[in-house]
């Protein structure tokens, strides 16, 4: 009974590897297809140990004889809820199984999941890997059913995991029982690259009109575990013989080590100091000893002084005058025209303005941590909370000059960090590896709160020069914007950099994609009624990086809605200013510039009208007429991201005497196409809105000439519960769009231009920088 039976399933190959007496499962793995570039990948992936691949019986999806289903994804969920809700819904839908049949979700672990990539773009503009894997699986199940029921494939119906045809029925479990089956599906990409692997081909997928699972508010299955203290967090991992580690990070972002402090063995008899170049760490058997010993060593360690940063007060002068924007290629959006100067020069009215956004911290609620176990045979196990474990694996392999084969990353729940580790490292993993290797025992490195503010990456500051020309009818005749932003994605592990170990290059002008200083246009133009537009992106090196002897400076990393936040804020605030210049209502002005008659234009107009209706927006062509000690105003913003249209209205009050702003109400209308899970999407939008209000009102990295001064929640305040606005979320389910857009990003970027627009409406004064802190607001009102 060892005959192999290969069946072609829309380009995937189903092979029956014989029959077994008990158990059995349909295991869907993946194979490599294609030529050229893909062959190289195929070779790398198939020879990689500790990774699921086509030749192994591990899989994306397992269907068990008891009718339960297991799914695996390389994407780690850090509060988006997608892998525990939307992915289960999508798989259930494509398999015609129930949501509850999917009892297990395995995510992130590099040796237990198939595809890699980061915690972003979960829904892949409608077709995440897991959806295609499920669609292939479904076709294979139909083929099996056709054989077992002896009816043609097209005469089979499936409901809730029960196949029927020719008057007979059987469950998926019965269908696969006693068989070892493997489906091979085509995959492309590079497993340990930031984007990971992509499932290829075009399996038939279920028609949207037939959906029964997608669109319902299923609960997140991990919530009950977290609430009952039964979830294992990365912070909870403990290994036999482990040591606790704390880092003694340099005095400044450019300080090299002069002399490491002496450990007081009378006080800390069990502690040990590890030094490798400029990396200093302290390990001890108990956490409290490690903390105290590290404090003692830190106090007596000598570092060279360094001053090479402009300081936050001079940041924008530095970016304007001193930063080098000439070596990196200037980018241009697809809709841009090379030259809009003639259209601009003919304008009746003109707005010329510069907008500034500061460095912002990801500020996870828990400082980063990781456990590493470097074993004598060269195998390295890392236990962490990471948004891209496969990429981390590649980075650690490079650091140790070994093969990714030898690195295994297990990822656990952890504090959300909003993109900070989606390029592979959360901060402490490499340091834990270095310390573990040095002492020959597992080491758990936990950053303290100041480490996390001062030695992590940040969202890059940016500035944008805008020129808008209006014609005699108050319509946009020409629009020009130049965005300036230092490199956004430095994925070098900081411990490796300090220790002088191999890393990828710092972002540079020759780098491609991630790792480049190129500033791409991330914010799609949504006002196609205006056609004379020019959008350009200018990039440069990270601030301070080149003058720092450590080559670090202010390292940057993508933060939720990366790049697009930096570009949408100036555009949307400028559009609000242009509307005022035109003597038009800020929402009607936007509607009038979206392209009526096109699907995209119609979706943009629809979200604007929805947010107008839901928010209680006052349609008027002049600004608010409040007077007195508290002034009220309204503002709006519009964004297109991840196949989703977003519109936001903020209603605020401001006290001119103090400059204090109270955000009273924020209304968000969101059209993602198909709404997969209304409850979870609503929670994502509420959360993003709160983060956006926090960024708008308070958040700004403070740094001096040597390093980051921001060190705790007092020096980096975020929004408190007492400061939240009323939040109203309007979900626009648009099945006819046919795709499910992303909903767990974007909401954080909507509030800033809406609140700044509301301040303008309330006071007639425009503040073209963030955050809208009382002292900056006061200064703007006096100007």
């Amino acid at each position, binding site marked *: 009974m060892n005959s192999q039976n290969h069946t072609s399933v829309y380009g995937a190959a189903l092979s029956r590897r014989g029959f077994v007496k008990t158990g059995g499962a349909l295991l869907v793995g993946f194979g490599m297809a294609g030529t050229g570039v893909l062959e190289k990948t195929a070779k790398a992936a198939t020879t990689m140990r500790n990774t699921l691949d086509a030749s192994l019986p591990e899989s994306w999806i397992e269907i068990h004889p008891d009718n339960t289903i297991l799914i695996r994804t390389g994407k780690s969920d*850090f*509060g*988006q*809820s997608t892998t525990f809700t939307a992915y289960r819904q999508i798989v259930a839908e494509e398999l015609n199984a129930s949501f509850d049949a999917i009892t297990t979700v395995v995510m992130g672990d590099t040796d237990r999941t198939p595809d890699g990539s980061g915690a972003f773009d979960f829904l892949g503009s409608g077709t995440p890997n897991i959806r295609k894997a499920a669609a292939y699986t479904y076709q294979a199940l139909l083929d099996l059913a056709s054989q077992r029921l002896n009816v043609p494939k097209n005469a089979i119906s499936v409901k809730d995991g029960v196949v029927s045809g020719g008057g007979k029925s059987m469950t998926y479990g019965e269908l696969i029982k006693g068989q070892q089956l493997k489906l091979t599906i085509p995959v492309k990409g590079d497993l340990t690259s930031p984007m990971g692997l992509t499932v290829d081909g075009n399996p038939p997928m279920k028609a949207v009109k037939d959906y029964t699972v997608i669109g319902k508010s299923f*609960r*997140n299955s*991990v*919530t*009950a575990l*977290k*609430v*009952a*203290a039964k*979830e294992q*967090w990365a*912070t*909870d991992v*403990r290994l036999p013989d482990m040591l606790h580690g704390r880092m003694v990070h340099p005095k400044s972002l450019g300080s090299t080590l002069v002399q490491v402090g002496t450990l007081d063995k009378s006080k800390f008899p069990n502690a040990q100091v590890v030094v490798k170049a400029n990396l200093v760490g302290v390990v001890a058997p*108990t*956490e*409290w000893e490690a903390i105290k010993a590290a404090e003692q060593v830190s106090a007596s360690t000598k570092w060279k002084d360094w001053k090479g940063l402009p300081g936050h007060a001079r940041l924008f002068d530095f970016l304007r005058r001193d930063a080098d924007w000439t070596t990196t290629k200037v980018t241009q959006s697809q809709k841009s025209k090379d030259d809009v100067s003639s259209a601009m020069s003919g304008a009746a009215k003109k707005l010329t303005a510069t907008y500034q956004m500061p460095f912002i911290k990801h*500020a*996870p*609620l*828990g*400082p980063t941590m990781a456990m590493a176990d470097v074993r004598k045979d060269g195998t390295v196990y890392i236990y962490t909370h990471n948004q891209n474990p496969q990429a981390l694996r590649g980075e650690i392999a490079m650091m140790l000059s070994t093969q990714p084969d030898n690195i295994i990353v297990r990822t656990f*729940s*952890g*504090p*959300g960090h*909003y993109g900070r580790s989606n390029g592979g490292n959360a901060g402490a993993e490499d340091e834990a590896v270095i310390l573990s290797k040095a002492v020959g025992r597992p080491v758990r490195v*936990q950053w*303290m*709160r100041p480490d996390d503010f001062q030695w992590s990456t940040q969202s890059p500051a940016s500035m944008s020069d805008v020129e808008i020309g209006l014609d005699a009818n108050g319509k946009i005749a020409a629009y020009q914007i130049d965005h300036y932003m230092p490199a956004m994605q430095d994925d070098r592990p900081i411990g490796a950099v300090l220790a002088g170990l191999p890393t990828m290059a710092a972002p540079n002008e020759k780098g491609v994609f991630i790792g480049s200083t190129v500033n791409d246009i991330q914010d799609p133009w949504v006002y196609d009624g205006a056609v004379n537009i020019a959008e350009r992106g200018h990039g440069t090196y990270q601030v301070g990086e080149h003058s720092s002897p450590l080559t670090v400076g202010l390292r940057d990393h993508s933060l939720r809605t990366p790049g697009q936040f930096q570009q949408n804020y100036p555009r949307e605030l400028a559009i609000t200013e242009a509307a005022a210049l035109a003597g038009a209502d800020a929402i009607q002005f936007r509607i009038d510039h979206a392209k009526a008659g096109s699907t995209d234009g119609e979706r943009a107009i629809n979200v604007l009208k929805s947010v107008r209706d839901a928010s209680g927006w006052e349609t008027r062509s002049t600004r608010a007429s409040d007077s007195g000690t508290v002034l009220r105003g309204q503002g709006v913003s519009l964004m297109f991201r991840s196949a989703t249209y977003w519109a936001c209205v903020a209603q605020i009050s401001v006290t001119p005497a103090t400059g204090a702003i109270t955000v009273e109400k924020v209304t968000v209308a969101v059209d993602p196409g198909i709404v997969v899970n209304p*409850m*979870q999407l609503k*929670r*994502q939008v*509420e*959360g*993003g*809105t*709160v*983060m956006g209000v*926090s960024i708008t009102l308070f958040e700004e990295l403070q740094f001096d000439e040597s390093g980051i001064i921001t060190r*705790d*929640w*007092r020096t980096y305040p*975020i*929004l*408190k*519960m*007492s*400061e*939240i606005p009323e*939040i109203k979320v309007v979900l626009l389910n648009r099945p006819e769009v046919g795709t499910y857009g992303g909903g767990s990003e974007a909401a954080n970027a909507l509030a800033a231009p809406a609140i700044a627009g509301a301040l303008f409406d309330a006071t007639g004064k425009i503040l073209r920088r963030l955050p809208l802190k009382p002292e900056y607001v006061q200064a703007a009102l006096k100007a």
Partner: protein
Amino acid sequence: MATILVNGMKREVQASGDTPLLYVLRNDLQLTGPQFGCGLAQCGACSVLLDGKEIRSCTTTLTAVGTKEVTTLEGLPARWAHQKGLPAAESEKTLHPVQQAWIEEQVPLCGFCQNGMMIKATELLERNASPSVADIKTAFSTGVSAHLCRCGSYTAIIAAVQFAAMQMKGAAR
């Protein structure tokens, strides 16, 4: 060596008296509900109840705990069962109404802060059975520090506290 009362049980621990309670709970007693968020009493992720009062375990030393009773997230079901005179076995099966409300309202995003949020909610509801929205906002925004959530779950928390209040009042009747 010290003996402390945690979730209704006396526990002997080896840690020195100056050790913050958080490390004792997490490392010595495997009570991992409380999380390390700042070590500075600025965020609330490490909160526990000490004789019913919400405190920050990251800055409360073992010595300061003394003979007072510590209740962690793990101990909330038994605390509720005890308060309601339910059989102890009941707490094995059911959660505290606050925890149930957190599931009902799907509060956590990443969930890292939610230990402290549920502890704070329990403290509040034990003192004020019908808190207004303003009461809830005040409770979570004042004290040693505000309870911080970076994911922005505050609106969900308010809904969950109100839901839990209804459940707890219902159970009292």
